[in-house]
């Protein structure tokens, strides 16, 4: 990894090198903050961007994606791959952690998802270390931090008049080198000068091992209590950076059609309803158990990292006001 230091104005000039990349940054639009294409001149001087309402997964795993077209009664046609190069600036370390979980599912486990792979190859993710904590976010209580690189290609630190860039992408390092007044190879991201990163001594949340969580799988009373106010909507899963469950549907127009991938949610009843009418997860307590354990037990099992980034979006949008931090504590308390 390369750690570069640039003067603030040089950094903005350096961004000019990425003209072939479309620049996306979080921008507020009414009550929502969305990743929007923008131009170099509109970038804020202090490089502060609000947290996006939806999670950054949309840029690599959109809610609707056409997989391929077909013509009925004739062999199938060519797939449609996204080729646009994007530079996404202004995301946060928790978004990058979410991208890491998605990468493990779509890229690192066989077979590779070619759509996600093409988009990931064409996208440069540059996050910015948080300068303030947002509503309900708790990454520091999970042992993660507002200054980690995680799955991003580079992270930017605010060093007042200068800008520190820790990059593990060859393209970024190459192009930024020319504008940096100092850069050196680093092995470990903690040796790097990060400026003042907000610290608060949060009460660490009791995170159990994947095995301990799995052992709770048949404790129906626990899941009943946790899921009792839940309404069974999908706003938490659709906004969550690490939720990657999807559905496949065909859409036709006369003799032609396409297969479309859209988001799906384990909180919906249809999700596991079998053709015979049998549903292994008939009520909300099984679905809540699936959602919680997928993040805190199965993803750590399969991918070795925590399936929750601590971004706090599910806490903010839940119409029933369920707070994941309190659920984590309740589960740990139940275990003892």
């Amino acid at each position: 990894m390369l750690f570069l230091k640039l003067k603030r104005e040089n950094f903005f000039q350096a961004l000019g090198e990425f003209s072939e990349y479309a620049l996306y940054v979080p921008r507020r639009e009414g009550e929502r903050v969305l990743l929007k294409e923008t131009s170099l001149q509109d970038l804020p001087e202090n490089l502060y961007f609000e947290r996006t309402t939806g999670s950054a997964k949309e840029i690599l795993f959109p809610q609707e994606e056409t997989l391929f077209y077909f013509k009925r009664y004739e062999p199938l046609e060519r797939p449609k791959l996204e080729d646009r190069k994007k530079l996404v600036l202004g995301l946060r370390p928790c978004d990058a952690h979410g991208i890491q979980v998605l990468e493990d599912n779509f890229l690192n486990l066989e077979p590779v998802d070619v759509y996600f792979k093409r988009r990931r190859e064409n996208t440069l993710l540059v996050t910015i270390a948080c300068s303030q904590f947002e509503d309900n976010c708790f990454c520091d209580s999970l042992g993660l931090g507002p200054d980690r690189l995680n799955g991003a290609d580079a992270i930017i630190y605010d060093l007042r008049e200068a800008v520190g860039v820790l990059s593990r992408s060859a393209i970024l390092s190459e192009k930024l080198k020319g504008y940096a007044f100092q850069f050196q190879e680093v092995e470990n991201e903690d040796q790097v000068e990060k400026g003042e990163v907000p610290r608060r001594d949060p009460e660490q949340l009791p995170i159990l091992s994947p095995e301990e969580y799995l052992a709770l799988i048949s404790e129906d009373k626990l899941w009943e209590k946790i899921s009792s106010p839940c309404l069974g909507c999908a706003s938490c899963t659709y906004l969550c950076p690490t939720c990657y469950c999807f559905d496949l549907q065909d859409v036709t127009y006369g003799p032609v059609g396409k297969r479309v991938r859209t988001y799906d949610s384990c909180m919906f009843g249809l999700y596991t309803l079998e053709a015979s009418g049998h549903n292994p997860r008939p009520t909300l307590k099984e679905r809540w158990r699936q959602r919680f354990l997928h993040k805190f037990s199965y993803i750590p099992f399969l991918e070795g990292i925590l399936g929750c980034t601590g971004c706090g979006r599910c806490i903010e949008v839940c119409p029933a006001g369920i707070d994941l931090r309190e659920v984590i504590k309740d589960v740990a308390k139940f275990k003892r």
Partner: protein
Amino acid sequence: MEDFEPKIIAFLCNWCSYAGADLAGVSRFQYPPNVRIIRVPCSGRVNPLFVLKALYEGADGVLVSGCHPGDCHYQSGNYYARRRLEVFKNLLNFLGLNPARFKMAWISASEGAQFAQLVREYVQEVKDAGPNLEFVREKADLVRFLNEAR
């Protein structure tokens, strides 16, 4: 836009309006061919989703016609339909949809001439309104793929 030939879907109730339309044909009343008729047991059977789905798939106008209040074969089907479709029509108007997109009528089994008149009026109304581009499903990519495939 004179050369525009609208596609109109008509839900006609089996006992009155469908018979009325049949009578119009038998009595050689001339009316434009733009109407595709779908027979329903009663105007009360028409679910507003039928109207939305027809427009969504590309219809330029939807007509629902049933027996005059009091003549319904099932006594109350058209009374329920009247309330239901009027609230639905007001909702579409408030949404900003062109009123020509959805029309409601009563045609009895003996009103062949009125049916022909209704269709002539309505087809002209939809022609003036122009093709339905504002409430139709997104299919540009599929259309392009269809043309390429040909």
